[in-house]
């Protein structure tokens, strides 16, 4: 890790001290977050992604701060480090479908040119469902056999529907974006929207869009979701092309895979119960989103029964 004095000198701060050691720096220019990147290519992808997103959307984001020598990444003994603003106030989304819809539309329509980095592109098929089940400990598998089998069957059913929906648009170039895990990545600074990108690998597909829409639906309801979708559609054509693919992604039983991943190493039934409840909540959220999306999407498209 770079020493605080080196960071101070590199970024031209007059004074600074750690607020959280190695993570948050308190300077005369505000609180700054230090990020250590294990993969240089991923860091460079994020640098380009955030700069482009700013140019394209005009929305403030946690871009890499520049050193006095004009560098945006510094090499330390532990790896590449970057420095960012730390903004903590959450963005009040209510009634701001237009503003956020435009941002998300532009976010997903952003197309970074060829970039050599590893992209997270998960595949969900029957084989992965079977494989997932085998990862669970024998104890849990025996005790939860009925539940797990029911979930597997239901997941297979959802998967077959997703495959059917997806099959129609195989030629479509899927978006590659910085992953979104929660709407809470939206912050506010000087009454303006500020987006906090997380550091994960770039992600291909509609997983992040599903997260955004699902959380929006739960927070603000269906009417608000439709307003949001209308706005996104202006910049990222959901009605024309991407809508079906998004629907397929929402139909795919990702929750089941996540659930297995969480419980695979557990032996304690109480803990499993917690994850079962979470799964049930997510399952319901996906069902509600699919239903809402289905209603919103163009009537000419073949309806999907949920």
């Amino acid at each position, binding site marked *: 890790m770079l020493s605080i004095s080196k960071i101070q000198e590199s970024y031209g701060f007059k004074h600074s001290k750690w607020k959280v050691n190695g993570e948050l720096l308190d300077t005369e*220019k505000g609180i700054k977050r230090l990020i250590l990147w294990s993969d240089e290519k991923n860091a460079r992808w994020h640098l380009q992604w955030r*700069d482009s997103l700013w140019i394209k959307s*005009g929305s403030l984001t946690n871009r890499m701060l*520049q050193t006095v020598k004009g560098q*945006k990444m510094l090499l330390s003994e532990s790896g590449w480090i970057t420095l960012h603003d730390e903004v903590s106030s959450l963005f009040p989304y209510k009634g701001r479908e237009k503003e956020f819809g435009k941002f998300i539309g532009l976010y997903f329509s952003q197309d970074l040119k060829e970039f050599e980095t590893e992209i997270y592109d998960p595949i969900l098929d029957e084989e992965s469902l079977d494989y997932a089940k085998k990862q669970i400990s024998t104890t849990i598998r025996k005790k939860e056999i009925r539940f797990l089998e029911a979930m597997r069957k239901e997941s297979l059913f959802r998967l077959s529907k997703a495959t059917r929906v997806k099959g129609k648009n195989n030629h479509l170039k899927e978006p590659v974006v910085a992953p979104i895990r929660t709407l809470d990545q939206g912050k506010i600074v*000087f*009454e303006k929207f500020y987006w906090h990108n997380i550091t994960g690998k770039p992600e291909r597909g509609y997983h992040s869009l599903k997260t955004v829409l699902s959380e929006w639906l739960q927070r603000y309801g269906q009417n608000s979701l439709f307003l949001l979708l209308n706005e996104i559609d202006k910049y990222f054509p959901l009605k024309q092309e991407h809508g079906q693919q998004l629907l397929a992604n929402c139909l795919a039983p990702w929750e089941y895979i996540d659930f297995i991943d969480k419980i695979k190493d557990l032996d304690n039934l109480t803990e499993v119960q917690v994850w079962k409840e979470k799964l049930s909540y997510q399952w319901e959220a996906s069902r509600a989103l699919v239903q809402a999306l289905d209603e919103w999407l163009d009537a000419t498209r073949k309806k999907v029964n949920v």
Partner: protein
Amino acid sequence: MNIHVQHKPIGAVLFQYDLYPEKIESIGKVKKIYTPNGVFALKETKMSEDETDWFIHVIRRLERIGFHYVVPILPTKYGDSVVRYDGHVYYLMPWYDDQTKFKHAVDTEEVMVEELARLHGLTERTQEYSEEVLEESYETLKKRWGYRRLEMERYVEQIEGNVYLSPFELTFLTHFQRTIFMAEEAEKHLKKWMEGAKEKKSFRSVLCHGKPSRKHTCFDQYGTAYFLNFEKAVLDTPSRDMALMFRHFFQLRPWDEQEGRHWLQLYEKHFAFFDEERHLFMSYLAFPESIYQSVDAYQNKESSVPELQSVSQLERKILTMNRIQRFMKSVFEGEQR
């Protein structure tokens, strides 16, 4: 950050510079930002994306060639030269107090002319010769001037039919023939420029400031001038920028042909015009566009300028035109003999 309600919209812009203002003053399109780390000037402007790219290119080029007589543009904390925000473009500069009193005697016009010459000298480029482009430029300008003359002739015809002439109309009518003479002189010099360039089979361009004026120049106490506002900078003939600067000088205070020649000589000490460029420079100066603009304003009654003021403005411009005529004569004295 302590920002009052009226300055809230620029809060998100200042955030990108990590500026924490103690006080903000609005001076036209510039915000004077007082911070514990110094005073800054934040300029708000409107530029298209292409214009912004060009502006950034110009600023970077000036840095590269080592032209230091510019108020520098400070980058954001992300390294951007400008901030595009809410339909506006912003850029930040250190605040330079423009001095009018100096440690020793300074003639601001002389300094500006010399520094413009340096800018032109450092950015000089010979353009690929194209007779087609040359003729097109010539024809476009000639056509525009012809159209302007025609408009003024029509106006004269119209006012000549009036029983009573207003003081403005009378003043314009009295000097109209002289404006026509100057327009013809402008065309003659324009033609000489084209013929000269054709003969030489070359023409050159420089980086023109585009709006060289006292307002866009800051002086320090030692009399060094720093140009600012390169938003209208273009690659064009040096004659254009010099004509713009001279026109600006003509409006500042009374001058005479000796002074005009002195400024021209000073400029040429650092960056000598080619003969044909001198003709082009003179043609730009000679064409009485500013007088015709007064007529336009008077006709359109755009502003509620009182008649007396319109007349005195027109008279001043006529005086300038007469001075330009004498200046022109003195510059080309040898040639005419």
